[in-house]
């Protein structure tokens, strides 16, 4: 037989049937580099790289406050520090203390560019707000993480930033719309934009 025996279409025309699911993935959480290295659940090399990365990310992704009072309101008295930046950032601002870090395996396709890691793991800083009892943490994006050692976290929390600040839109689609008036008049079809197919 040259054709399929059975065809099934599930979600055609419906929206996002599976897109809302969050998948969990394993990650590791430590209070310190030493604790990581002493642990049997990963290698010292992964600890070191994860820690270094987390520290670097702390400098760029930690929640920022313009006053120490604002910072302490969220993170507690004595739990904030000034972060002074070299380069384009002028002045200083206040960030919560780096109290721990999380390491998770990068997806193969994410391991590139600024996210490149030789071990294939990704490290990010963890913080404790006033509301976090012992054993819970917050990521830079304010996601809650529970436990130390082996943990299970939503995939999108374990990986490099999933969101970014959008500067502009509509940078794609202009050629197609410039050609639409042509397309509809010549083909006799009055679609409001021209087909991109062929």
């Amino acid at each position, binding site marked *: 037989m040259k054709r399929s025996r059975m065809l099934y279409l599930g979600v*055609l025309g419906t929206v996002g049937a599976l897109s809302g699911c969050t998948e969990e993935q394993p990650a590791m959480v430590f209070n310190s580099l030493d604790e990581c290295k002493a642990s049997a659940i990963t290698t010292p090399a992964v600890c070191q790289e994860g820690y270094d990365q987390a520290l670097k990310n702390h400098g760029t992704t930690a929640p920022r406050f313009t006053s120490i009072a604002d910072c302490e309101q969220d993170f507690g008295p004595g739990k904030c520090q000034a972060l002074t930046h070299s380069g384009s950032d002028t002045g200083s601002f206040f960030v919560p203390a780096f109290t721990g870090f999380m390491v998770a395996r990068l997806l*193969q396709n994410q391991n590139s560019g600024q996210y490149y890691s030789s071990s294939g793991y990704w490290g990010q800083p963890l913080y404790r707000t006033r509301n976090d009892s012992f054993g819970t943490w917050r990521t830079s994006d304010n996601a809650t993480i529970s436990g130390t050692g082996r943990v299970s976290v939503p995939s999108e929390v374990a990986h490099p930033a999933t969101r970014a600040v959008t500067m502009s839109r509509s940078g794609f689609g202009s*050629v*197609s719309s410039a050609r639409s008036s042509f397309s509809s008049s010549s083909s006799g079809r009055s679609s409001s934009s021209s087909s*991109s197919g*062929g």
Partner: protein
Amino acid sequence: MQRLPIAERPGWRERAEELGFLFHTIDGEPYWIDDAYYRFTLRQVEDDIEAPSSELHEMAMNLVDEVLRSESLLTKLRIPRPFWEWIAASWHRGERHLYGRMDFAYDGKSPAKLLEFNYDTPTSLYEAAYFQWIWLEEQIAAGNLPRGADQYNAIQDWLIQAWGDQKKDLPKPVYFASVRDHAEDRGTILYLRDCAVQAGVESQIIDIEDIGISTEGHFTDLDDRIIRALFKLYPIEFMFEEEFGARLPTSAVRLIEPPWKAILSNKGALALLWERHPGHPNLLETHFDDEPSTSLPAGWVRKPLLSREGANVHVHLPDGNSVLEPGPYDAGGHVRQRYVELPRFGDRHAVIGAWMIGDAPAGMGIREDVGYITRDTARFVPHVIVNE
């Protein structure tokens, strides 16, 4: 190969809409033909369509590899220089491709002749892969076709397989993008997404116009989530020219189809194939036509390097008459391809679209049009394999 009438399925329009096929009729003109079909023998399909498409595909893939190692060939194809490295990297990293359609002139007797590759944004997929299959099942069930009637069509099986094969290499989710307010393109991406979802791929839908750029140069969706994998039903060469185009190489976005498909969606590939395989029974003699102002001899067809839906194609018929399909693609280079007669059935001619899914031949769909040039006004007619 014959075109035969058949009773149309009662209520097929409602059935089509129920199945998500919303463009079966476009502006009152039929696009899907329910009451006729093309009949082939198994030998015709296997020897004359399936086997040549497999061979031509392999030739095409070898050509991509050669072009991406040659600055002079990239220049000849007018691939913009800022994208060379990025395109080549996508090839050398082995980024998989999903699909492509080869268009053939075939009359059931002589060797099928390749008219062109549609390897970046091929459409008419849903109707070939799914609705055509349903049509056959229902016509057999209705007793209008014999039990043993078959169809060259495992396209959907292969699509699901292809998504499954590349799933592990793809960031999540995969965004499916098409042009806003275009029902046919939207229908195609919804269908492809459906196949992807069946293979376990996590997906989102976005209009190509809604894609944003972040301060760090990532593409973003309307919720400011970073787009790391983008299936775009949108010509890669349009993207090259557009405002965000220059950001593609540094955005770290994984494109599907991959950037290297730019080599095969370019009509210059047909001239390069002819140079490498002159006289191949399934190729039409084709040359670069760098001086399109010179007159086109009778028996030749001039096509822009980049053109969709037959736009800007100029046909100089062997009898001396000319047909020129106007269009917006007149800038840039051209190729000149030997004219080939398309088989006529009544007032229409037929073109065979042979589908490759990944690197495997997977099925076919037939479109027919009134004029010589198959445009976006063509009609889709189902086919059947019956052995006599």
